[in-house]
């Protein structure tokens, strides 16, 4: 997507345009799991809806699997799960999936087989023949995911796939996403749950206020300012620790101490620990968690575009 812009019309009598996407640039590499992160209202859903053709963009250019949006051919190779999917509630899960299969031009037999297989995969075999009007939120989410996979898509676009699911369901979706990745598929999903992104994504893009503020490999984004090392030591008394590192943040973890040491003085600190008969357990670069990054990045007044270029 290049320079995508979108405004919603708001208000009834005097309609005003409310810009939601303000020149969004985004590239999802094939074969990767790509997370679209951002607080509520950042424009994630809007972005995905434009991609699948539910909304028209006001300006910009977008391609899906290398093809322009207007082209219908890519739709055979893409799966989409909307946010809080609303599925026909007068159908059962199996009927819904078979109907979707029919839209893809699958034969009756292929549809049946695929529906059974997918229901199994999303753990809905037992509720396959219950009308969806009686289904719980979690069940709908599972069927929603299954319907996105009917055509064995190369690119799967998921809008908040974990929302409304219990821990079991989330685990299942995570596993499914990783299975898709192993099968060489591309998964593009939006979420505001950072731990999901952290465990699943190869790359992420951070959306804020209709723009991408950071994008890239998770490791790169998070390691971008490793300035401190975490040194874990043991067999030292409080006094010893105080003399070794008088100004450094240190935390007592029972037998052990955790010291945050600037990179430059790591050698010095290690020498001191050894000469005090202490034991060095580990020295690790202090990567910030995605959450820390997110909070800093989304803080108001933060210089915009800090990660661009």
């Amino acid at each position: 997507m290049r320079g995508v812009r979108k405004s919603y019309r708001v208000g009834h009598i005097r309609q005003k345009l409310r810009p939601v996407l303000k020149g969004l640039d985004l590239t999802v590499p094939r074969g990767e799991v790509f997370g679209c992160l951002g607080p509520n209202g950042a424009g994630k859903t809007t972005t995905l809806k434009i991609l699948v053709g539910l909304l028209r963009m006001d300006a910009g250019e977008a391609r899906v699997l290398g093809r322009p949006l207007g082209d219908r051919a890519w739709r055979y190779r893409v799966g989409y799960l909307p946010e809080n999917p609303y599925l026909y509630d007068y159908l059962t899960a199996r009927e819904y999936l078979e109907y979707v299969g029919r839209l893809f031009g699958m034969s009756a037999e292929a549809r049946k087989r695929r529906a059974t297989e997918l229901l199994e995969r999303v753990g809905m075999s037992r509720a396959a023949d219950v009308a969806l009007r009686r289904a719980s939120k979690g069940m709908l989410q599972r069927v929603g995911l299954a319907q996105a996979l009917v055509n064995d898509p190369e690119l799967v676009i998921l809008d908040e796939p974990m929302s409304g699911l219990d821990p079991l369901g989330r685990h299942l979706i995570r596993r499914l996403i990783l299975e898709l990745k192993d099968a060489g598929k591309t998964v593009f999903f939006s979420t505001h749950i950072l731990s999901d992104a952290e465990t699943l994504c190869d790359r992420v893009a951070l959306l804020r206020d209709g723009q991408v503020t950071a994008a890239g490999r998770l490791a790169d984004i998070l390691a971008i300012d490793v300035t401190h090392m975490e040194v874990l030591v043991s067999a030292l008394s409080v006094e010893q620790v105080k003399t070794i590192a008088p100004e450094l943040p240190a935390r007592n973890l029972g037998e052990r101490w955790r010291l945050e040491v600037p990179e430059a003085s790591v050698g010095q600190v290690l020498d001191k620990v050894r000469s005090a008969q202490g034991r060095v357990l580990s020295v690790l670069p202090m990567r910030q968690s995605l959450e820390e990054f997110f909070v800093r990045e989304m803080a108001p007044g933060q210089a915009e575009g800090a990660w661009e270029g």
Partner: protein
Amino acid sequence: MGGLKRVLAVAANTFRETIRERVLYNLVFFAVLMTLSGLLLNRLSIRQDEKIIKDLGLAAMDVFGTVIAIFIGVGLVSKEIERRSLFPLLAKPLGRDELLVGKAAGLAFTLLVNVAVMSAGLYLTLLLTGRVLDLGLLKAVYGIYLGLVLVLSLALLFSTVTSSAVASVCTVSVVVAGRYSDVIRNMDQVTKGVPSPVTEFLYWLLPNFRNLDFKNAVVYGLPVPFDVVALVTVYAAVYASVVLLLALVAFRRKDFQ
């Protein structure tokens, strides 16, 4: 080719929806009405009762059919657009045109089934009260069905351009106005100041249900020539197609927010 298959898939699913959502329950009322009137008239044994049964049956068919056409045309389509049930489907190879045409076809089929069952009910009543089965009634039934298709297409158009509440009001107004379009045509004679080109234009714009109405002619044994039937068929087909085309244009441009 694939397009036709998808249209059929949507149509079949739409029909299934009307069955599951119990739209055809109106048939029960119709059956009750027919049975009651049959029994009652049998008791009274008036000479004119055959005409009364036919009259009542056809009128009920028209009214029930119209109510159902508005109900499903606005209800099911607006519901579909206002709830988010189309989101997953529109990301599939299903085109928006195909979707709307499929919906229209499925609903038209529902109306056909509805009218067919009601006709069967009417004939059954005639049979059970010992009358001759007058196949001429089918011409009136056909006219009624054409009218229902017009109602349906209007309901679809309004559903694609406004909310369900406004769409119902608009559809009902246009249908009622279409039934009394003669009044509108003669308005310039009653109220001064309304320029006759305006009323004339309105008259042509509104669906002309009177031309489709063979009920009286059939009941009172007046001739309904074949070329008249053919002519109103063309009229209904053209009218419904144009309305549906407008709906397609509106639906294509729609943003699903």
